[in-house]
């Protein structure tokens, strides 16, 4: 199946999105929307834990566990979270809230905003069929703009692309 970009000179990029936490949702959406703004034809393939980023209702969460490099700015210094503290009930929720406050304060886009920009700039958003089946997501839980495809769909696009990222 050829679309008009396949026939033209537009650069193409694909991103495999495998992580759907509040922090890891940023790199694929930032790079995808920016590439689209620079006239690149972008395809994002959402699989495993990346797939929830295509749900109609986004409720992104965060965990401090197992992330040795995570430091939050606090009162002029940086605070890291020891795993044993991060494991306590409520700590992840508090960290997510803190991150969302920082995001707002620093003028960083929300993931909702970036996803909207991705849709507006006609980025192809492909949801992985196997992941939908595996984790029992219903089609109507997901945004209407999601197309459904599998590994071969991704490969067909990746083989023609200039940049392929796995995030």
């Amino acid at each position: 199946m050829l679309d008009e970009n396949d026939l033209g000179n537009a650069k193409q990029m694909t991103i495999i999105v495998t992580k759907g936490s509040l922090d890891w949702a940023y790199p694929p959406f930032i790079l995808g929307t920016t590439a689209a703004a620079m006239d690149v034809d972008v395809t994002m393939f959402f699989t495993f834990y990346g797939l929830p980023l295509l749900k109609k209702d986004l409720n992104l969460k965060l965990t401090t566990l197992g992330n040795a490099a995570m430091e939050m700015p606090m009162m002029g210094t940086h605070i890291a979270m020891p795993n044993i503290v991060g494991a306590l009930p409520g700590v992840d929720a508090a960290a997510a809230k803190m991150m969302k406050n920082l995001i707002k304060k620093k003028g960083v886009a929300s993931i909702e905003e970036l996803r909207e920009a991705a849709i507006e700039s006609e980025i192809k958003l492909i949801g992985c069929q196997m992941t939908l089946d595996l984790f029992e997501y219903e089609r109507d839980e997901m945004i209407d703009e999601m197309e459904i495809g599998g590994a071969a769909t991704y490969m067909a696009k990746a083989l023609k692309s200039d940049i392929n990222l796995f995030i």
Partner: protein
Amino acid sequence: MADQTLDAKGLNCPLPILRAKKALKGMEAGQVLEVQATDPGSVADFAAFCSHTGNELLSSSSEGDIYRFEIKRS
């Protein structure tokens, strides 16, 4: 001299670029968009954006904390 002005002050990467692209889309070839931003990263980013999209970066300057870019739509 700009045909349109975009206030991107207070916005962080990649929003100034995304908003600029959107504004340029609604303009005609040859028209000039002025972007005002406070993100220091936008200096390198607008140069890179323009070099790859064919839009011409007429000027890039700063006054205090405000960066100003003039972009001619291709």
